[in-house]
C-alpha cells in the first residue's frame, strides 16, 4: 500500500529541509488544483506532500521598491483583488483569472501554474511578457531567475529536487505602459487554452511604440517570446499595418502540435489573430490611463 505523508512547514528553511530529506519523493502543494487531479489519476505517487501555504513569504503580496512580489502560493482570487497589481499588470491578472472557475481561483496560484510546466499555462506568457522573476530557495540559499528561463519543456522546470519556488517578482513598468492576455477556448470558461497570447506594450510621448514583448502560449513546448516583435513594433504607431506584420511574425514563431484541443494550422493562425488583438487591448489601456 502506497504511504503518503503530509507536512506544512512554517518556514522556507523547514520546507527545504523536508525536500532534502525526502530525496525527490516529495511534491510541493500550493493551491493543489493540478496536484490533486494528478494524485487522483495515479499519475504521481509522492512519499510526502509539502504544503507551502503556511510559509509567510510564499503566501503574501509585498510592494517592494521596484515592483511587487507575489508569494508563489497566493491564490488567483487574492491577486485579483489587489488594486495596484490590477492597475499596473492587468495582463497578468487577467491571465491568472482565466485559470479555471471561481472555485479554482480560490486556490490556484501563480507558482503552481508555473511549476506545473504546462505549455498551455495561462499565467506564464503574461509573466514572461511582464519580465517577471522567480525567486527560488534551496539548500544553498536563494537565487533569482527570469520566468522565461524557468520552464524547460512540458512538465520540466529548472527547479532542482530540493528547491522550491517561493515568490514571483513583477518589476515596475514605465508610465505609458500596459499589458493584456487573450486566449482561445471553445467554450467561454473552464477550458485549457488552445492558444494564449500575452502582450506588454510601452509607448513614447508621441504614442509610438517604445517597447513591446509578445509571448505565446500553447503553440510550442513552452511559452515562447516572439523575438521579432520588438523590431516590428518599436518606433511605429500601433495600427493595422504594424499589427499585420506582427501577426505574421507570431505565426512564424509557432511550433505547435496536433492534439485533442487543437491543430497545428489552427493554433498558428489564431496565435497571429490573438496577438494583434492583445496588443490593441494593451494599447487602448495605455491611452485610457493617459486620459484619466
Amino acid at each position, binding site marked *: 500500500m502506497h504511504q503518503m505523508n503530509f507536512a*506544512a512547514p512554517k518556514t522556507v528553511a523547514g520546507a527545504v529541509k523536508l525536500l532534502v530529506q525526502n530525496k525527490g519523493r516529495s511534491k510541493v502543494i500550493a493551491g493543489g*488544483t493540478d496536484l490533486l487531479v494528478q494524485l487522483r489519476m495515479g499519475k504521481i505517487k509522492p512519499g510526502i506532500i509539502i504544503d507551502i501555504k503556511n510559509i509567510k513569504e510564499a503566501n503574501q503580496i509585498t510592494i517592494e521598491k521596484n515592483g511587487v512580489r507575489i508569494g508563489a502560493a497566493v491564490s488567483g482570487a487574492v491577486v485579483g483583488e489587489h488594486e495596484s497589481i490590477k492597475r499596473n499588470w492587468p495582463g497578468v491578472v487577467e491571465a491568472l483569472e482565466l485559470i479555471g472557475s471561481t472555485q479554482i481561483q480560490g486556490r490556484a496560484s501563480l507558482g503552481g501554474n508555473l511549476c506545473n510546466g504546462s505549455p498551455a499555462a495561462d499565467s506564464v506568457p503574461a509573466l514572461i511578457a511582464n519580465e517577471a522573476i522567480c525567486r527560488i530557495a534551496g539548500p544553498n540559499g536563494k537565487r533569482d531567475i527570469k520566468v522565461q528561463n524557468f520552464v524547460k519543456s512540458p512538465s520540466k522546470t529548472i527547479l532542482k529536487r530540493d528547491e522550491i519556488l517561493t515568490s514571483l517578482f513583477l518589476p515596475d513598468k514605465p508610465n505609458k505602459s500596459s499589458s493584456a492576455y487573450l486566449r482561445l477556448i471553445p467554450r467561454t470558461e473552464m477550458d485549457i487554452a488552445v492558444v494564449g497570447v500575452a502582450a506588454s506594450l510601452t509607448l513614447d510621448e508621441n504614442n509610438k511604440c517604445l517597447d513591446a514583448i509578445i509571448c505565446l502560449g500553447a503553440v510550442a513546448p513552452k511559452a515562447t517570446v516572439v523575438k521579432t516583435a520588438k523590431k516590428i513594433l518599436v518606433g511605429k504607431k500601433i495600427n493595422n499595418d504594424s499589427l499585420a506584420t506582427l501577426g505574421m511574425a507570431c505565426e512564424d514563431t509557432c511550433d505547435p502540435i496536433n492534439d485533442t484541443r487543437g491543430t497545428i494550422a489552427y493554433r498558428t493562425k489564431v496565435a497571429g489573430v490573438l496577438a494583434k488583438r492583445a496588443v490593441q487591448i494593451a494599447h487602448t489601456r495605455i491611452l485610457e490611463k493617459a486620459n484619466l
Partner: protein
Amino acid sequence: MNKHHVSMSVNGDPVEILCETQQTLLDCLRDELYLTGTKEGCSTGDCGACSVTLNGRLVCSCLVLGVEANGCDVQTIEGIGSEKTLHPLQKTFLEEAALQCGVCTPGFIVAAKSLLDEKPNPSEEEIRYWLAGNLCRCTGYDKIIKAVIKAAKIMREENEQRTNRRAN
C-alpha cells in the same frame, strides 16, 4: 496508513477527524462527517457540485486535501439558511424551478451565496461567469440565473430594511 488529526470548524461546529493524506476535504465531509449535501460529480474541479467555502473563499472541496483544512472554517450547504427558515437563494431556487434532478443544486447555492455575499447586485453576465464552474445538465441554466437575480434583489431589500431599522 498515515492518518492525520484534523480540527476544523464546519458550519460553526468544532469537529475533529482522522483522515488519510489522500482524502480530500470532500471525502472528509461526506465519509467522515456524513455531510452528504456536498456532492461529487467529477473529483477534478470541473463541475462545482462539491463547492464549499474555506475561510470564506469559494473552493471545490474535491481539490482540497482534508489535512489542508486543519484549523480552517468550512461552510457547506448544510450550514446555509437557519433551522427554521430558508436562505433567499434556497427560496428562489424553489420558486423559479431552478432545479430538476437537484444534484448540482447544493453546489450552485453555495457558489451563488458566495457571489451575493461579495457582490449584492451582479449583472446577468457576472452571475453566469461566476457560476461557470458549476455544471448543470438539466436546466440549461436559465432558471438558475433568474433565481440568483431574484434572490439578490430580495437580499438587497432585506439589507435595506435592516439598515433603515437601525437608522430609526
